[in-house]
């Protein structure tokens, strides 16, 4: 059970950073790849994660379970997939309405990446809730979780920028990330059904 939660947190971190790097690629044809495009992307991801942390923490208070935890991944996948279909028309529309590529890229990153990233941001606080058993170990558990999910983020960054873009199309990478989230949802559901996911109550 503990290992499953760490695996899910790792995958969450991996997907977030992979998505962020691909974001630069998605925006470049319309807004260039200048420093302000990266500024827009990082701003939106940080802001979205911040909101996700709040919502995830709040949501973990009542009836926490592995099943509910897994559903975050399913919702994340469902909200991420439209990028493959609608990124082009959305950016075209923004491009026509916003002349300044700084605000264009900020608006585009908001519309394209904010919602799925908010959802993925819920993973960390929710996994802390599932793992913490006693107050005295709360810090240690949170530390381990940050370790695992940030390790996932660094691996997602490296794999995407060094290898994925060299071999695969952006959309195929996005589809694979979506699939990874769905697999995490299925894994969590199966473990929950097997009774591994009894929420620990204090």
């Amino acid at each position, binding site marked *: 059970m503990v290992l499953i939660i760490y695996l899910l947190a790792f995958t969450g971190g991996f997907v977030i950073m992979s998505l962020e790097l691909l974001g630069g*690629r998605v925006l470049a*044809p*319309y807004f*260039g790849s200048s420093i302000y495009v990266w500024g827009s992307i990082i701003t939106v991801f940080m802001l979205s994660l911040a909101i996700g942390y709040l919502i995830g923490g709040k949501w973990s208070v009542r009836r926490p379970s592995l099943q509910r935890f897994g559903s975050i991944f399913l919702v994340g996948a469902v909200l991420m997939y439209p990028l493959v279909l609608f990124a082009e028309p959305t950016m075209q529309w923004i491009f026509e309405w916003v002349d300044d590529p700084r605000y264009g890229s900020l608006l585009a990153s908001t519309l394209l990446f904010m919602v799925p990233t908010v959802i993925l941001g819920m993973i960390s606080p929710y996994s802390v809730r599932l793992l913490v058993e006693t107050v005295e170990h709360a810090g240690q558990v949170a530390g381990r979780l940050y370790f695992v999910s940030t390790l996932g983020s660094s691996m997602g960054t490296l794999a995407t920028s*060094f290898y994925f*873009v*060299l071999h*695969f*199309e952006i959309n195929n990478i996005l589809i694979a990330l979506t699939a990874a989230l769905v697999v995490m949802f299925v894994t969590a559901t199966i473990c929950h059904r097997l009774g591994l996911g009894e929420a620990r109550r204090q």
Partner: protein
Amino acid sequence: MRPTLRLIAAMVGLLGIGFATTGWGKILHEERSLYSRIMVKQSGSILCLQFNVRSEQRNQSCIDIRQPRAMVFSYTRMSMSALLFNPNPQNILVIGLGGGTLPTAFNELFPNAHIDAVEIDAAVVKVAEQFFDFKSNEQLHVHTRDARVWTKRALSKPRRYDLIVLDAFNGEYIPEHLMTREYLQETKQLLTANGTLVANTFSISNLYDHESATYADVFGNFINFRLPESGNRVVIVPGTAVDDATLQQRASALLPRLRPYAVPIKRYTRMLIKDRKQRPDWRTDARILTDQFAPANLLQGR
């Protein structure tokens, strides 16, 4: 000048380029801009604009201040042979400013033509004005924008170009969104029906295959203009089919006008006529670069 003197002068000039492009020479200006490290160096009468540290020849722009119009680098001279296919362009687009050599030459040769030059780095524009005597005017406009963004905007405007020069890669880092099928398609849409496109591109490394295959995908047959003595490769997409005899006629007409720029147009024409009968010397099955697949920098290193 007597031939021997001329030869000596030419050799001194070459030595100057050699010094200016290596560690030698005097640094007149150095700055780190948002996009690259810019350096202006002088060695003898040769003044060079250099990007980054480990720069090769192709990454920079040089002038000889004794003959400021003479084009120092072969790829710049080679680009001028696009005029063989459009001897009198009315609307010219140059992507990538450098020292401003090409836009300035076009402005002098065709004072009535509308010229747009697009350069991402405001610092490069400033350096071109300050050290390379580049001046915009009523006909010659400089736009400080990302070329991809500028091109997309230009598509919704009425102006189309009968000559487009792509010369955007001036550092070691390649802006990957400017080396994709989609970018070339957008640029193609900016051409008039008889418009000619010329691109200074990569001639070495694995990227040569991918880039050539991408150009072939968008433009079909193009002239793969190479010189035996230089590593440069210039892609020319002629707007109209021009037979060999007409090319030679045009070269003769252009010769006196291009003399101040040191463009050996007659020799280039002979090479071009040979080159356009060549079969592709790249791997035609190389994967095409697209917005979805654009690892140009990674491919270059392979």
